[in-house]
């Protein structure tokens, strides 16, 4: 490598301070948006996504409980099963309920601000934490690898020339903000992370000067003094420190978050995110995480509604509920959506240690006023929908079959939420993925097949009378029943198998 090339390569990896002797390029100019807080237009350009990573692999069946298969559920996992009468009911959705710790998310669901995407995974699932989370973060097939993350590629494309030509008039703030110790692959662009990272909530409050650093782990004497000094400099070296400080001082938390004594680290992170959003930080993506979901043993306590998993779900639910309420009070609710993801789901059956082992499908949550429908896919069919389909006697471990490829959700976020041109989205995700109609009031066919087969519909459900329906060109739909719909647009073909009628309610 020639000197000059190395210099260029090295500079591009430095974010966002530029090499200039001891000098540091000043990034102190005030963000225009911070100064004009009044502007909260609902244009796509203002839209934000908050990604919540549940590290370890969340147990979906004890999170979203398929009440319609309760006895099978009990049969698969009696030692950890949530009692039926303790499951939280969901308005207009009698077949499904939430873990009793999830009162906050239950309320959000009932307000129409939270969607469940059932049984999300990808073909040929991998059950290694590292590999599977990598697949989720990079957005690739199980047999592919990518050195960039799905959100990083989006930002890399949307904000060409970052970081050399930034901040600029179009983007004065960090493209993405992560709170976490280890930079996430999700935000990796083609050459470097597209985001800036705050190690933990403490480092945020230290950065904005409202908290003094913890000195308890410092050695004595000069070494302690030097380490403390270096940490201070590390904090100041966080990219876009001045923009973050400005946004933090312009923004406020208006909702009540769980008390610090609750030890809800997710809520603490989301609280910072809400404050920065309110303060006008233009960052497109925030990335936070909650660890501890790898519940191989002891996921419930003496009582099945308590224990490790209940604590985690309470943190998740309380955190999201407080965050969403904060956005509502701030008036920023309409420009933010959130999504959760995890390494993988866990087995349908529990193990003998009151835990669950690595599995396949699990629900994702998408929340915010932007969601247009609340259920994508159906409850995992615990009668006939487990893998292996026909288990041998020794195959006691059963997995939840995938219904929705996670990249369909990514694709909807990129297309419908961020307004990316579909051909560009396909490029970012390496190919086309069918919509889930998560952000659309119209459902559409994604393949030919029987009308009554949920799998042919974009939202993974048989359309109801309230739906606007499109039968896409090239799809032949066999109709064996009367059709009731709000609207019906047929670009493909309806093949009636008998004397059935179409009733459009308008």
């Amino acid at each position: 490598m020639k000197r000059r090339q190395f210099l260029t390569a090295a500079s591009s990896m430095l974010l966002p301070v530029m090499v200039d002797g001891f000098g540091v390029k000043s990034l102190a100019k005030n963000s225009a948006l911070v100064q004009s807080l009044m502007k909260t237009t609902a244009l796509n350009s203002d839209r934000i996504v908050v990604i919540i990573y549940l590290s370890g692999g969340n147990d979906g069946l004890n999170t979203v409980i398929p009440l319609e298969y309760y006895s099978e559920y009990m049969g698969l996992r009696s030692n950890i099963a949530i009692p039926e009468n303790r499951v939280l009911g969901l308005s207009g959705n009698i077949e499904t309920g939430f873990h009793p710790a999830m009162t906050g998310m239950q309320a959000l669901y009932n307000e129409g601000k939270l969607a469940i995407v059932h049984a999300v995974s990808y073909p040929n699932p991998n059950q290694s934490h590292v590999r599977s989370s990598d697949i989720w973060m990079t957005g690739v097939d199980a047999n592919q690898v990518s050195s960039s993350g799905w959100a990083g590629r989006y930002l890399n494309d949307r904000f060409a020339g970052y970081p050399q030509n930034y901040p600029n008039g179009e983007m004065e703030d960090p493209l993405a903000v992560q709170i976490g110790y280890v930079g996430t692959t999700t935000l990796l662009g083609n050459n470097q992370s597209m985001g800036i990272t705050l190690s933990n909530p403490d480092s945020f409050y230290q950065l904005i000067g409202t908290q003094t650093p913890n000195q308890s782990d410092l050695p004595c004497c000069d070494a302690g003094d030097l380490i403390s000094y270096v940490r201070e400099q590390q904090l100041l070296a966080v990219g876009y420190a001045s923009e973050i400080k400005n946004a933090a001082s312009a923004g406020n938390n208006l909702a009540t978050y769980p008390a610090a004594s609750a030890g809800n680290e997710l809520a603490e992170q989301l609280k910072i995110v809400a404050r920065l959003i309110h303060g006008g930080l233009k960052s497109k993506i925030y990335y936070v995480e909650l660890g501890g979901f790898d519940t191989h043993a002891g996921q419930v306590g003496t009582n099945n509604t308590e224990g490790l998993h209940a604590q985690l779900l309470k943190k998740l639910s309380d955190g999201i509920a407080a965050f969403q309420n904060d956005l509502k009070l701030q008036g920023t609710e309409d420009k933010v959506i959130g999504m959760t993801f995890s390494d993988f789901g866990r087995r349908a059956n529990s193990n003998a240690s009151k835990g669950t082992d690595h599995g396949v499908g699990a629900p994702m949550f998408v929340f915010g006023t932007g969601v247009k429908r609340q259920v994508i896919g159906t409850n995992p069919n615990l009668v006939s929908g487990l893998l292996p389909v026909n288990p041998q006697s020794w195959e006691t471990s059963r997995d939840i079959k995938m219904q929705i490829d996670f990249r369909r959700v990514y694709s909807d976020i990129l297309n419908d939420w961020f307004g990316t041109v579909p051909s560009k989205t396909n490029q970012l995700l390496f190919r086309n993925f069918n919509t889930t109609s998560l952000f659309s009031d119209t459902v559409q066919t994604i393949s030919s097949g029987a009308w009554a087969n949920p799998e042919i519909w974009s939202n993974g459900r048989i359309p109801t009378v309230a739906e606007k329906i499109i039968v896409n060109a090239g799809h032949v739909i066999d109709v064996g029943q009367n059709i009731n719909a709000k609207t019906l647009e047929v670009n493909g073909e309806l093949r009636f198998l008998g004397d059935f009628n179409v009733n459009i309610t308008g």
Partner: protein
Amino acid sequence: MAYLDTYTTSLTASTAAHLLRRATFGPTNQEIVDFTGKTATQAVDLLISNATFRASPPPPVEMDETRADKGQQFLTKPFYGDRTYDYFLFIRYWWIGLMTEQNGHPSVLEKLTAFWQNHFVVTHSSTGDYRFTDRYLRFVRDNAMSNFRTLVIGITKDPGMLVFQNGNENSKESPNENYGRELQELFTVGQKDFAGNANYTEDDVKAAARVLTGWQVNNLWVEGSTSFGSVFNPSRHDTDNKSFSAKYNNTTITGRSGASAGDTELADLTTMLLNHPQTPRHICRKLYRWYINPNVTQEIEDNVIIPLANFFASSGNNYAIVPVLKKLLTSDIFFDSNNFGGIVKSPAEFMVGMLRHFDLPVPDLTSEYTAFRKMMEFQEWAMSKMQLRFLDQPLVFGSVPYYQTGFSKNWINGTTLGLRGQHTDAMVYPWLELKPGYMLGLDFLKWIRQIQPNFSDVAGTEAVTCDVVFAELSKNLFAIEPTQSQKNFLIDTIMMRNIPRTSWKFELNAYRTSPNNADAQNPVLWRCQALMKYMLRMAEYQVF
């Protein structure tokens, strides 16, 4: 406390590592093992005697493999102006290579040479002539362990110094006081004593300049010249007597004439300077800051600096350097645990120390000059950008963090932290290929195969825990052992990402079972990378 008393406890891994970190640019793990169990005296004696192994290393060569004269020596050829900057870099690489190499004989030589290089500063930029820089470096390196008097006399006549500090232009008709001042202010007595009193007067500067009149250099930057050096020109020399102030006991240096006048008066001047009581203190204080702690308190001044200075200047020692160095490096105060981690690593301690810690071999300069150049280019570029420019410092004062308030803290700011992180990341995610089969950086999978006993015997030999792997990867990495809670954080949060530690064994066994399968390799690799990347970016890694 017994400050300068000899530390008598046998060295542990921790104290051996401390000695090696300070006396050299950083130890390999093997060197720490080799030095553990020795007494401080045995250890320092070895570090001193080992200097002979590299007393006369092979000279630098043309390292640009695209040139016809690649691999050939250039210092034995006529001056070649077109290549002067490249040759200067090759000289720098040559020296950094000596600092970095792991030849099994760790020695005080290069670190001490670097001390004198930062003390008697000559910058390459002032001459632009690579031969001058080479001669200067060889002079301080050859005499680093000799006698301070030899150094003062020799550096005063060094052709590079004569150009840099304008001794070259100093004549009886038009005296140039530059060197006469720096010789006192920086090189010998120091500007002020510890209490803040001036150590010399302005008239002393003028008098010293007059003593030094007449020295000149020849063939600076003369294309095709085959020799160069310093000469004394008696006709430019001021032959009058030179009188000094009470600071020097009103010494008068008798004016001489003739060819030997320059040397004779310089010897007198040096004697006067070395008789000044502040000279040994100035040097010993600087050595203390270099080797032990930049923070010199009154207590340290009284109990360490002054007694050490008295010894340095004593008639028995007469300014010999090695005995002072030995006394310092074997002292109780050197091994006082409060001084562990008490200095921020300079870019050299950071970069050279990292490559030595990870035992990354230096290609042979003579036979593998391309690979050698690539490695040294990486190092030299990093150090320069991190504000350490060997042989071309910003000022005659040396590098800022060795004298400015805050001392070693001055190495650290947002830019340099970014650069430091970028270069440690380069070890974790290797990208620089020095030669086929040698990527500069860490091979974690190989490391894991070494840590795991009976690697392939999955059924018969239990997988090592992540705690064991953490202990190996973090061994000797920090000057101060991390606390248990820090270790737990590093294992649970960074390495295991909050999944149970037991998962590591499954992942490791998957790798042991299918060592060539990328999906099986990656979890193990990824966790080691995440851990090492984080540790090398910790504030704790920045101090030594």
